């Protein structure tokens, strides 16, 4: 069933409407929310949302519980290739939990929180931005990791990044839900403005595995990947020092050694190489720059080091 979560009048003959699809069967009271689309330029999850809806529609008898799918929390952004909320130039994922008596965007955010609150689990799926490609991963802050890790391990991701919490991130959807008792996992995968089918399928498998573990799905599922669990300190950041055109020499997902050449920053005007970019540590290239034009400071890659601070194969921290 398609339901309207909230609607607000726009200036001329249109409503800003947030919709969800509620799919329900059986007697189980459990509810899972699949949330996507706060950032209008992230489209990977559009395929994932469709996959889940399609599977449930065809095999509804195997579902025991409620699945709420919110494919587009920022409809104006998705329909206009805009990351933030068009006209406001505002990152929606910095406005949560919103406010019932606030501005238009604050009231929308507050209605979304109210609608999701109380779910047994919420999965907020992101797909990076147009600049960087990401291996399917789950990100969580240290304080939430104790509660969230057992669920994160079921989601069939390649790794789980436990990072320090930053005050500014307190305005995200996930933080707002987690801090009010609704367990929310943030998945990052792929790249902005594109759809990578294999990642959609990978997280699809993870979500059904999670539902099976929660007693909400009676169908077959695949054995999830055993993720690498990493603390913040185990991630090496590679930023450009030069400006120019970045051309990678490694492939996404490669294992590299410290000082290996990751790519070059080129100067097409002079036909010169401005910077040879090298790995800052040994490890897995899990983030790689997709958009070639760079300034000093542009993030080129993130490398996950596999050492005593990381735990391979889904072990405990």
């Amino acid at each position, binding site marked *: 069933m398609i339901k309207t979560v909230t609607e*607000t009048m726009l200036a001329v003959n249109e409503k800003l409407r947030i919709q969800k699809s509620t799919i329900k069967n059986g007697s189980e009271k459990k509810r899972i929310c699949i949330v996507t689309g706060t950032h209008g330029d992230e489209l990977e999850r559009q395929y994932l949302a469709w996959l889940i809806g399609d599977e449930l529609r065809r095999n509804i008898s195997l579902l025991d519980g409620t699945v709420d799918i919110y494919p587009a929390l920022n409809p104006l952004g998705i329909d206009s290739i805009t990351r933030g909320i068009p006209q406001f130039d505002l990152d929606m994922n910095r406005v949560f939990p919103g406010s019932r008596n606030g501005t238009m965007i604050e009231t929308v955010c507050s209605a979304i929180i109210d609608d999701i609150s109380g779910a047994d689990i919420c999965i907020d799926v992101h797909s990076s931005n147009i*600049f960087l490609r990401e291996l399917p991963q789950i990100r969580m802050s240290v304080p939430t990791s104790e509660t969230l890790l057992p669920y994160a391990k079921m989601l069939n991701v390649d790794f789980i990044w436990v990072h320090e919490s930053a005050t500014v991130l307190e305005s995200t959807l996930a933080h707002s839900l987690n801090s009010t008792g609704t367990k929310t996992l943030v998945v990052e995968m792929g790249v902005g403005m594109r759809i990578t089918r294999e990642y959609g399928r990978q997280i699809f498998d993870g979500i059904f595995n999670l539902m099976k573990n929660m007693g909400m799905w009676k169908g077959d599922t695949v054995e999830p990947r055993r993720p690498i669990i990493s603390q913040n300190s185990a991630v090496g950041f590679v930023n450009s020092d030069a400006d120019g055109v970045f051309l990678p020499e490694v492939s996404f997902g490669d294992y590299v050694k410290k000082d290996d050449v990751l790519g070059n920053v080129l100067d097409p005007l002079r036909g010169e190489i401005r910077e040879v970019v090298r790995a800052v540590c040994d490890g897995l290239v899990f983030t790689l720059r997709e958009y070639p034009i760079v300034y000093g400071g542009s993030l080129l890659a993130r490398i996950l080091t596999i050492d005593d601070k990381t735990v391979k194969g889904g072990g405990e921290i």
Partner: protein
Amino acid sequence: MKKEILYSLKSPYRDNLDVIGCRFGSGKKSVAIVGATRGNKIQQMYICSQLVRTMKRLEKTGKISPNCEILIIPCINYYSMNIGKRFWTMGNTDINRMFPGYDQGETTQRIADGVFRKLEGYEYGIQLVSFYQTGNFLPHVKLMETGFTDPADMERFGLKYGIVRKPRPYDTTTLNYNWQIWETKAFSVYSNETSGIDDVSCSEVVAAILRFMYSIGAITEKSVPGYKTEIINESDIYQIRSSAGGIFRADVPTGSPVEQGQVIGRIIDPIDGKTISQITTEYAGTVFFEYNQPLINESTMCFKIIV
């Protein structure tokens, strides 16, 4: 005046982004003033430029106090200004959400870091800002309450209103907040207009900043007297949001006194011209802010009234 490049960033094909600082006097770091951190803050840059002009005259006539150094940065992100963007040219990040910055981080973190290093150590910091929402409002000074800066110091500007704001999570990466963390007493001065120029508001703000500098003893030229500042908590300002979307018409200008129950604006159906919402105020007071765009969505802040 010493004009210097405080931070320089290279770009693949454009001229360098050179953040220019104008320094007056010498000795103890007294006041730093920052104009446009975003590409649409033309008025804020203009105010700084007018301040630089005045300061040059004061310097020539020996009216800058000894052992006092004043730094003015009219604009940081003119790269975006030159291409009509509000936020950073690539990636759309906001430099005023990147403080204190990080020299090994992303581009805008590096810019914030480079500039912040030059802004540290001043006794006072003044940032020229405008509202996020477009609208007309009365010039005022605002203090982000961190416990470091004394709200009474806002009176030195002689603006009609001084507003105290409780910081929210997203405020913690602004210049104002970080200045205070690094022990600079920081104020945000709001002038009317952002992307256009309002000369009256500009003169009012220039006069207010000169008044402030005279009051703390950084300059010796006495300025025209200002108002006795009324200090208000932001949360005490009465706010009115639109109950419909449509064409917005305000019936009273900012600064006007309004009575309880008075109709102060209307929302008109854009198709049939009928008034679909009359905006009335529940309290008597002074119109402090009003929305000024022709189109309005539902739940948009359209008036703020100081009661």
